[in-house]
């Protein structure tokens, strides 16, 4: 056995082994594109009942209407955001101080005062409000005319209409706040669908670096990017 013959054989063996190793290294990609979102009218809520869901669709559509100059709460899928939030840690006030005393008259800086967590507040408030609408206007909130819905929400905001079931929590404040959050939060939380709200206001998203644009008095030209890497 000469050295050169030995080396040739060895090299071939090495090459075939290397090829085998390379082949076995081909694995199924872990990354997969997220499925396209189901249409809102086919969406199955995680937290809300059917009646509550109808209320949320109607109420958020009044807070950020689709008839404005940008996308409305419905186009941005704000109701999905609220549903997922109430089904998660926010809904159960997982990291809030929830023990007593609960004093609705306490100053605002003393924090949240209701013994109900946000999910419970939504549930109680929607039931009470729908009952009130049925008594006053003959139908639950979702079935009223937009003008009437606006009047109900305005009365709620002004304090002309108060809900006893929320035990001190401001349902309107919570709903308005969560609607804004669902409109502007990153799409990974279910709202701001397609970054539509960011495109509307010109926010460039989670790119986090605009060093070269400091002091340049021209709009930043690129569209936004989301945490998941979507581009718009």
């Amino acid at each position, binding site marked *: 056995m000469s050295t050169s013959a030995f080396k040739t054989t060895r090299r071939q063996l*090495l090459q075939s082994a290397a090829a085998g190793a390379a082949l076995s290294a*081909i694995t199924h990609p872990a990354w997969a*594109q997220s499925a396209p979102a189901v249409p809102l009218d086919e969406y199955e809520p995680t937290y809300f009942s059917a009646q509550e869901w109808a209320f949320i669709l109607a109420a958020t559509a009044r807070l950020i209407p689709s008839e404005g100059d940008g996308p409305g709460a419905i186009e941005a899928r704000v109701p999905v955001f609220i549903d997922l939030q109430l089904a998660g840690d926010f809904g159960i006030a997982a990291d809030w101080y929830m023990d007593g005393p609960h004093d609705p008259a306490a100053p605002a800086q003393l924090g949240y005062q209701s013994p109900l967590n946000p999910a419970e507040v939504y549930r109680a408030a929607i039931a009470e409000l729908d009952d009130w609408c049925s008594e006053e206007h003959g139908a639950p909130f979702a079935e009223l005319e937009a003008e009437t819905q606006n009047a109900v929400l305005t009365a709620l905001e002004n304090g002309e209409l108060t809900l006893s079931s929320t035990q001190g929590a401001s349902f309107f404040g919570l709903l308005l706040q969560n609607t804004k959050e669902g409109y502007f939060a990153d799409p990974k939380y279910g709202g701001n669908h397609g970054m539509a709200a960011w495109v509307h206001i010109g926010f460039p998203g989670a790119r986090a670096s605009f060093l070269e644009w400091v002091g340049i008095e021209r709009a930043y030209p690129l569209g936004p990017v989301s945490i998941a890497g979507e581009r718009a």
Partner: protein
Amino acid sequence: MKTFLRIVAGLIVLGLVAVAAIAFLPIRKTPPNDQLAANYEVPAGQGEYTMRLADCAACHTAEGGEPFAGGRAIESPFGTIWSTNITPDPDVGIGGYTLDEFRAVLNDGVRRDGTHLYPAMPYDNYRKLSEQDIRVLYGFFMNEVEPVASEGETTKLDFPFDQRWGIRVWDWAALSAPGFTPRYDDPVLDRGAYLVETLGHCGACHTPRNAIFAQAATTGEDATFLTGGAIGGWSAPDLRGPNSAPQTWSAEQLKAYLASGRNDRSAVTGEMSLVIAHSMQYASEDDLDAIVAYLRHIGGGGGDGTQPEPDADAEATTELLASADPAMELGPRLYLDNCNACHFTDGRGADGVFPELDGNSLVNASQTAGVIDVILNGSRLPSTQSRPADLAMPDFGHRLSDEEVAALATFVRSAWSNEAGAVTADDVARRRGNAGRPQDPRS
């Protein structure tokens, strides 16, 4: 015809005898290369220090495992090789080894029972160890390591690589002469040569492999030594060429990189993170200076660390990125969306924190697995004594498709002054789910 057959048969018999002779004759072990005094005692602390520079822990301590109890998987082109228990446990460890048997492991790659080790153990480098270092290491493992009785995974390679007698044939063809010979008439350079070529076994990764997968050169006198190799699909960069990092950086920059895994040009990632974390950060000032002096010497003197002024190509890339032009291609757009916040439009990062991508050896490597893996999985700097912050780059594998990673890597490899080839979506798909070995250099 009869004569011809007889000749063929004779040759076959001769061949078999030759193989049998190589495989089964008693092994001749390398004798001690020095006589130490009969009353030689290992100086306190010297054992651990020498073990660290030899970087035994990088392979023989598994992530989260007991020190030196083995069980770390070493990926090789021939299959997974599992590192062994080298604690002084008498049954599963090396507690029963005599000094001569211990020396045979380091010098000849032969276990106490005569079994040949796979050359994942760098005995081709360790065979030049001084007798004093062998004694020091022997003392450390016998007296300063806790015995651990756990037997880890056993290496089981496929045929023909499971035939360990074949390694003896390989050893015969591959191994260099034992023993280290000082050659520079300069104690600093000679110490550097010994640390790089032998104890630190840098050549095991950074030197090309030849046709029989042996390290192509084992000393700096050979021009191929430390001109770059491959490990786990990554390029282990060239350390000698005029454009290599050690030859363009200043001595201070190279020393800072070895001691802390970072300097004002680059930051460590991949297998080298383990070398910094387990070994180089513990090197003394003198030893670091010796390593730096030697590396610069064999590369033609080394650089002064000044960054070249950006050329027209580099400025064109910087301007394109700074324009944020919506018409730009996917590659630069992805750079802006994912990389620019830390590595900046000029690709020069920030000193000691974010490595430069312009001219970066990992970015420009011929093996693209490194840059793909870092994009997919991120990277974390080792926490070192001089720079404790284990700064991390996040993983982008969850937010980029294979095509997007390919477009991004292709852009970065051709951005600024970089001129490396394109990366395909197939290249990326092959690295998906391949988290690589060094996930957490803190362990």
